[in-house]
């Protein structure tokens, strides 16, 4: 992600990398440690599902809206998933209003592919009438404060929003199904155990780290995002995306793949624990 206004100076970048060589970060974290996660679900009661995820100072909210539409001709009996991200100028001085930027499209696409390719949502179960009517899931992601690592925070918010989502009520009007907007059922979305979480590994100098702060993200020369699920205690990578201006060596990639399971295990445990708590709290509401 290119910072358009507040460039981190070359000096700062050099210092960040120097410290990184000694394994030191601004906030004393280990290279593969994520910041504290906070989750809240049900943050917007007009949506079918919504969640707020905080990763340190980074805050992202995601919401699910459902619609009924015509299926794609190549998959006449599956539902449709649309993921969108809008980098609100509210969240950082580096974003401007206007049509979606390349960065926002990339974030949405990385998160979209993780959820789609893992088949976390059973799209086949979202068919109402084959070839005619299927459910459309709009999954929209907005940063509220960009303190670095929007991709991973956004992916977590997206998953949490999906998990909290319920179908709206509908009514048959002849052949067509109509949504009774604002009225909800208790029926959850058809999700399965293939829950993907996205981790982005950054390369600074010759070090690899996760969950960068804004300054670290600016100094990052390359990144690799991956959406990974766990099935039968094994990790499955569903989507990968390399970004940034420099290359990775094979050794670096091996290092990333070897470290990933441990990083994922910790992240998942933390995420699931916080999500459970959030869901309990939302139920009480």
């Amino acid at each position, binding site marked *: 992600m290119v910072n358009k206004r507040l460039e981190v100076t070359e000096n700062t970048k050099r210092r960040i990398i120097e410290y990184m060589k000694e394994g030191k970060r601004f906030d004393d974290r280990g290279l593969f440690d994520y910041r504290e996660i906070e989750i809240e679900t049900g*943050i*917007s*009661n*007009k*949506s*079918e599902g*919504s969640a707020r995820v905080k990763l340190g*100072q980074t*805050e992202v*909210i995601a*919401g*699910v*809206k459902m*619609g009924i539409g015509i299926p794609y001709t190549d998959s006449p009996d599956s539902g449709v998933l649309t993921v*969108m991200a*809008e980098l*609100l*100028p*509210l*969240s*950082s*001085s580096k974003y401007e*209003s206007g*049509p979606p930027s390349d960065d926002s499209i990339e974030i949405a696409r990385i998160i979209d592919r993780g959820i789609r390719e893992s088949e976390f949502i059973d799209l086949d179960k979202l068919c109402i009438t084959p070839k005619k009517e299927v459910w459309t899931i*709009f999954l*929209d992601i*907005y940063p*509220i*404060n*960009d*303190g670095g690592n929007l991709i991973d925070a956004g992916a977590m918010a997206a998953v949490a929003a999906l998990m909290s989502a319920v179908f709206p009520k509908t009514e048959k009007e002849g052949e067509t199904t109509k*949504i009774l*907007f*604002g009225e909800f059922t208790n029926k959850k979305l058809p999700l399965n155990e293939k829950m993907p979480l996205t981790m982005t590994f950054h390369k600074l100098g010759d070090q690899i780290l996760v969950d960068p702060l804004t300054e670290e993200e600016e100094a990052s020369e390359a990144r690799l995002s991956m959406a990974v699920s766990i099935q039968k205690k094994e990790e499955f990578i569903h989507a990968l995306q390399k970004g940034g201006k420099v290359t990775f060596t094979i050794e670096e990639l091996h290092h990333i793949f070897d470290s990933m399971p441990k990083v994922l295990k910790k992240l998942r445990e933390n995420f699931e624990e916080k999500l459970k708590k959030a869901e309990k709290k939302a139920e009480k509401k």
Partner: protein
Amino acid sequence: MTYTKRFDGRKFDELRKVEAKVGVVPNADGSAYFSFGNTKAIAAVYGPRPLHPVFLQNPQKGVLRCSYDMLSFSVTERKKPGPNRRSKEISMVTAKSLEPVVQLQNFPNTVTDVFISIIQADASTRCAGINAAALALAHAGIPMTDMVSSVSTGFVGNTVCLDLTKEEEDYEEDGEKLVSDIPMAFLARTGQMSLFQLDGNGIKPEDLKKVIEAGRKGCQKVYEIQKAALKALAEEKEE
């Protein structure tokens, strides 16, 4: 004349549960959250900062630019992301409601950006947005001569109601819509009005006067809450 009891049981001159918090977006120069019941708004201020493109700059004073928008999932039927005609108009009236108090003459050629996002909508979103924006401007240290407080007052059936909900906005009698929705903003110290709009099926001038009086009282209540939110932040800093 049948609207004698409010849908949510409130008194006619009672606000919904109001919450205000200053300092919710660490990246911003100033920020605030403001909610009227189920209507929730966040505002963030960036600036004063150089205004581009240059031809928009004003060498005599800084420009106040507001961008109001609803998030796609903040309403029952998904809103297409990005600004539309409605949000552009609201952005404009929001800027106009705040301009009388901000003192940007010492910041020529700059822009002060106010971004407002509605997270959850249940009527009065522009009022919640303005209240959050005024707090955020104060938090950002922008020189201001006064505070701006806003509330929407309605004429439902034949009754003056403070702070309408969506349900009240859509009130009907015998299949006919019988509501006037009147968002207003007042400067707290001088009591002058900086936002005044009306949508509805018609209201008599005499009734409108009552509505304005109710709105002014409502805004005073909002002002007290805004003041408390700013004080809470100051106390937090002292500790």
